[in-house]
């Protein structure tokens, strides 16, 4: 693979052609807030937290969906970008119900962590307080729409890794909601394998294991790493044959 050279925050770095800008930033230890991105899943480019400035490009670009290119000059933490990230987080907090003190994920939540890292300590916008239900019909897991930030990691992991495609999104705009099957109760889903991958990749307390109480829920997505490593080493016969 060809190597390209680019400038990130006034420093020259090299990267492999075809890599995403976000992965290069991570490799060089540059702290980038992300919510919809998760290594091992396809990129969505929806949370807009990893926006960067590219010199010579009037538009900001999301680093997760921008491939590196020779000679690009990237700025990741300009005053404007930090301000926008703060505003986007405020918008996310205002959208549904994110009261950390009563959340199963308190202390382990990615949304909470990003807000703490950036120093977002209050929300200047109206809380929209939508009237959203919970789905506790599944025997092992629960879904609380109030905590959902619509990152669609659950949708992608179920489709791309588990291959069941139980999850999808219905409605549009602020009325969007993740659904199981064709908006049937999760517990009645015939396609759900109860693998729990969606719960483990969910960044907030929207998906949780039943029985967890405040701050008890911790999530691990290293299984994605194992799957990726397995794929790289070509351990699965069906994937070998597929190629």
């Amino acid at each position, binding site marked *: 693979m060809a190597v390209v050279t680019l400038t990130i925050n006034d420093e020259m770095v090299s990267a492999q052609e075809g890599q995403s800008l976000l992965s290069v930033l991570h490799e060089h230890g540059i702290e980038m807030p992300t919510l919809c991105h998760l290594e091992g899943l396809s990129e969505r480019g929806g*949370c807009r937290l990893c926006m960067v400035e590219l010199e010579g490009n009037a538009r900001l670009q999301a680093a997760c969906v921008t491939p590196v290119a020779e000679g690009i000059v990237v700025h990741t933490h300009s005053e404007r970008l930090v*301000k926008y990230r703060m505003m986007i987080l405020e918008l996310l907090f205002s959208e549904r119900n994110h009261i950390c003190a009563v959340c199963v994920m308190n202390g382990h939540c990615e949304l909470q962590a990003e807000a703490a890292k950036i120093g977002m300590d209050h929300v200047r*916008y*109206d809380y*929209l307080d939508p009237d959203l239900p919970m789905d506790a019909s599944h025997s092992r897991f629960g879904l609380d729409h109030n905590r959902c930030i619509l990152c669609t990691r659950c949708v992608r992991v179920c489709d791309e890794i588990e291959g069941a495609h139980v999850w999808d999104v219905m409605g*549009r*705009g*602020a009325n969007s909601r993740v659904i199981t099957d064709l908006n049937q109760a999760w517990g009645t889903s015939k396609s759900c394998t109860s693998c729990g991958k969606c719960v483990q990749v969910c960044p907030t307390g929207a998906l949780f294991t039943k029985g967890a109480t405040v701050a008890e829920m911790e999530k691990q997505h290293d299984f994605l790493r194992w799957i990726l490593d397995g794929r790289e080493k070509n351990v699965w016969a069906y994937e070998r044959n597929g190629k």
Partner: protein
Amino acid sequence: MNRADLESMAQREQQRQQAFRCRILCCASTPCLSSGGTAVFDAINTAVTELKLDADVQPVATGCMGPCSRGPMVTVQEQGQPDVVYQQVTPEVARVIVAEHASQQKSFADHVLPSDDPFFAKQQKVVLANSGLIDPEKLEDYVAHGGYLALGYALREMTPESVCKEIIASGLRGRGGAGFPAGLKWDMVRREKADKKFIVANGDEGDPGAYMDRTLMESDPHRVLEGMAIAGFAVGAEQGFLYVRGEYPVAAKRLERAIRTAERRGLLGSRVLDSGFNFRVDVRIGAGAFVCGEETALMASIMGNRGQPTTRPPYPAQKGLWGKPTLINNVETFGNIAPIISGGAAWYSTIGTPKSKGTKIFALAGRVNTTGLIEVPMGITLREIVFDIGGGIPEGMAFKAAQTGGPSGGCIPAEHLDTPVDYESLRALGSIMGSGGLIIMDERSCMVDVAKFFMEFCMDESCGKCVPCRVGTVQMHRVLERITEGSATMADLERLQELCTMVKETSLCGLGQSAPNPVLSTIRYFMDEYTAHITHHHCPAGKCTLDQQPVSEWVTA
């Protein structure tokens, strides 16, 4: 069918039409149908039968004639005489028209729209040349007006490369709104190497008050198909998709029928006009999402997925439908192709301004005397459109602003009435050309209310994929609502401006990136109205209720 057959078909149809002494054209486009056009056409037919004029008079249901607010429209073409256009025709009037023209008396003066009316005089019809003159459901009628000759010429006398060159030379720019040079896009798709390529015509017009694409598809469907076929030949695609908005059933029906007739006659399908070129077109019907007018969302919808945009690059020209290079243009852009090929790029580029060539169709709506569909050369001033073509503002009111580009555009105030209408000038004013919606507002429109209306539209139509657009539009709408209710403070206005810039710069697709435009442009030109609402609790247009108070005032009281 080959080119000779095409010409003989045209001649036969011309002779058949000339055999009638008089043709009565009755508009069967949606606006006229909704104001009673069907009854008028029925009345004409009955009158012709009753008066036993079948051999003399031919009633024709045509496409749009233009002045929609004056419909139902009827045009009478009598041999050796200038056309007479009638407005606001009722079934009774229609019967009288038939009788008078049959007895060759002088025309029914009350309803005649004079032919030197500035509504017609200032227009230049290139794309809508056939609209209102031909029966959109009859292939022969289109062929008699020179239809499919451009396709025949391109297939026999030109190479794909020279077609692209011709389009580049014509200076045609995409009519969907952004104004990307169409020829360059075609050439990009042509250069891509792939086993399959696709053509997509975007007929998912969604701006409130705009109906240019609908009219074109309803009035002259074969023109769009011919443009698509030429594009297919130029870029090497054998399959086209016509994405029609779900709310346009008449357009979809006429296009389906047009595709079937053209395929039966060998003008589409396998071996088009006896050449080696194959081109199939399928209609895809949208399900009512504004965002599907965005090209990546539209392609997702065609492929049967949720209509949500994806980031570009890769551009559709590189990876579009099913990962193959795809040429996607607005239907109006395709409507320009046949005239460019038949008339030549040199002729086409004489119309318009140095950077914006050709004509543009606008749906003139709002507070003007004559609303309707107009086609004007680029570079015409807004003043000419509003006061000559539109006939000025009714009830002696003063012009306040014109909104171009719908919810993605901005307003143009009275001091800029003499700006030429082209891509660059409108952008310099903080608005955009857009797809052609043009809403005229008078003193009674409150600009904050207008901004709120468009923000509500964007909020409802946001797909929900990216955060700034999904939540930002709701928050911006809330602030605008507070301003019109009277409970906003100047700090809210600052927050609104900050949100506008953020949503504009960080949103994923064109919908979010342009959603703040109406707010930004009304703030730019009508800041005094915003401050009047907030600091003086007064709506200059007298539209807003302003019955609430800011919370801070509650506290101090």
